[in-house]
């Protein structure tokens, strides 16, 4: 039993944090979020760090580390509200290509040459692994509508997830191919833009996957990564509130000396730290492919998103008026936290799945 990160993992975390502090300080993130969005040209620099293939074996051109290391990076990106396509390309896209053994595309992704994103939810907005047809596929051409496709504006390649009359599938299609139309949807969270894709008999390539199990693995990775983002940003929101409440004075003392303020932050800390514990457990379980991975990932995402949302709310509250302004960075943390809560299922629906795993085992 060993529940601590290794020295190497801690070093990875430190370097990721440093890089984010350096290149994506809050002002920079604000400019990207409020402006035109992430600049595609900045992506290859991430490839240069070896982060893209962090959990890909060395013989496939990756760094040969694991999903836990990937999560360490994701947590730090979440902490900084990194506005680039890491979740879409690395956590989801690359893994989908690996599940489908699309070697050539994998190497394009690893080099930073191409950016992939994943179209999962259909027009009902659900991120399910179920057999209900979501797209139609005639062995050559793919049709359907996908919503909430992250980072579509900077992506080259789309991985489409869906059930068809023939079963669950994954396809790749170029974003700008014939038969594909796409647009960005105005999102509340400017740091993670979501897109809409419409496929009308677009020529696509089916990936050969292991049926629903592959989709479940993709989903579990997404859930664990979203949990890690939430933990990262939730911690950061608490730190902002601590900085503020240690120095802001009212009634002749720092407001952090009032229990009404201090205990809110203690509670936020408790919630984020216990969610962090779940998140690391889920990450380990997904990395190792243990039987509880799916349940753990669902529970961790549900809890971490709720903890992050609540932490941001408490941070806004303890900031008072200033936390309610656009100029203060807090609102972006809050909007990302809400976005995390809303994607891949709100707490209710994830807990329904947890309950099914617990109460109705197959």
């Amino acid at each position: 039993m060993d529940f601590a990160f290794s020295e190497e993992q801690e070093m990875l975390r430190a370097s990721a944090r440093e890089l984010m502090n350096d290149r994506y300080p809050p002002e920079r993130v604000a400019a990207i979020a409020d402006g035109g969005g992430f600049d595609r040209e900045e992506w290859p620099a991430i490839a240069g760090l070896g982060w893209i293939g962090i959990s890909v074996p060395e013989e496939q051109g990756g760094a040969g580390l694991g999903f836990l290391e990937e999560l360490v990076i994701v947590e730090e990106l979440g902490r900084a509200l990194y506005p680039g396509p890491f979740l879409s390309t690395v956590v989801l896209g690359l893994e989908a290509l690996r599940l489908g053994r699309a070697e050539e595309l994998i190497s394009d992704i690893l080099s930073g040459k191409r950016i992939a994103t994943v179209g999962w939810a259909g027009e009902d907005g659900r991120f399910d692994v179920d057999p209900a047809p979501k797209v139609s596929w005639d062995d050559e051409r793919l049709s359907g509508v996908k919503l909430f496709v992250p980072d579509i504006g900077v992506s080259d390649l789309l991985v489409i997830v869906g059930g068809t009359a023939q079963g669950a599938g994954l396809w790749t299609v170029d974003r700008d191919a014939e038969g594909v139309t796409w647009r960005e949807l105005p999102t509340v969270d400017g740091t993670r833009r979501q897109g809409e894709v419409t496929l009308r008999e677009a020529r696509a390539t089916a990936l050969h996957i292991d049926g629903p199990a592959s989709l479940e693995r993709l989903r579990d990775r997404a859930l664990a990564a979203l949990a890690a983002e939430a933990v990262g940003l939730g911690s950061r929101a608490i730190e902002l509130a601590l900085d503020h409440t240690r120095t802001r004075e009212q009634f002749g003392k720092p407001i952090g000396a009032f229990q009404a303020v201090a205990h809110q932050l203690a509670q936020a800390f408790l919630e984020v730290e216990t969610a962090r514990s779940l998140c690391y457990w889920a990450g380990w379980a997904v990395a190792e492919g243990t039987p509880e991975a799916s349940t753990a990932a669902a529970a961790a995402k549900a809890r971490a998103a709720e903890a992050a949302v609540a932490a941001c709310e408490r941070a806004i509250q303890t900031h008072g008026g200033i936390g309610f302004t656009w100029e203060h960075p807090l609102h972006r943390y809050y909007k990302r936290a809400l976005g995390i809560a809303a994607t891949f299922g709100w707490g209710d629906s994830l807990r329904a799945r947890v309950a099914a795993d617990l109460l109705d085992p197959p």
Partner: protein
Amino acid sequence: MDFRDTAEEARFRSALRRWLQENLPEGWGSPGYQEPEGEARVEFYRDWSRRLYEAGYVGLHWPKRYGGHEAPLTFQAILLEEVGRAEAPEHIGVIGLGMAGPTILARGTEEQKERFLRKILTGEEVWCQGFSEPGAGSDLASLQTKAVQTDGGFVVTGQKVWSSFAHIADWSILVARSDDSGDKHAGLTYFLMDMHAPGVEVRPLRQITGDAEFNEIFMDSVKIPADRVVGEVGDGWSVAITTLMNERANLGFALTSRLDVAFRKLVTLAKATGTNGTRAADDPLVRDRLASLWTDVQALRFTNYRAFSSFLRTGVPGPEGSVAKLFWSETNQRLTKTALQIEGAFAMLGTGSDRAVEGGRWQNLQLRSRGNTIEAGTSEILRNIIAERVLGLPKSR
């Protein structure tokens, strides 16, 4: 105890309801309706306020000599309920009617009453509020805006923040420090400041939703004549408390009524939205939450009524208003959060998206709701007030 209208109240209510139905601005409330922008928007609201006034629906319980009707206070409650229920536009004089006016009525000179009250009712003059400062939020008494006494008046310099309507206001109620030698509560004075006076500058403050509902007011050597002081010089703290108590007392009915409307829209949303293959309104978890929210709204309504009864008896708004404000703010936060949960992934889409549910209005309302526990007394301050002034616990500061 009778929760029904008296015959007289019922007549008033139905006449008002009919008047609203017949007089709401054209297109108001229809799906594609766009409110006018900029100057036209001010004119629109000023015009609506004038019509409300002319129909006899403004200043119901104010003295007749200042343009009021001396009607029973219950009529005012009915008015607030019905205007909220009809989702009618607000009178432009929100601050004048709810804060400045009641304060002038209670503490102003006869000259001030004559000069200001009727124009609040008619909408001719718009008011804003200058209380909070960047360094003085919950601890209002620590404010730093200076008022230096000169011949015939004061010269005011400083900064105020969180002032709604300031960008269109003609007048501001203002608390400033006229004496910083003693106790911080003692040296404050309450002013009526001309917003068109030289030295007043207003800058919009963009908030979490992206809108700029509030403003900052910068005052650089603004002259205020001596007869624009309310109460005594140095007695500003007690006058400000009068204002804040009235603010909370007046908010109750209007806010509850709007919350009731929001609840009905939430039910509509739940019936229109599918999650997990069924209507959200059929999901037992959503149903439990809706039942709980409905219970909250009713509890708030009747808590307002009870506070109102005590107001009727004593004539002075009591600290019970703090309970209602606190409960309302948290209910509104829960309600709007529930809307996002019902929307599922669509909760991510905001204003400007044709894929957004109901044009992204719930996203806006939800973000806006986070201010509810900060503005008009933070929840922490309200809990202090309840603990100390209602429950008699020792002071925590």
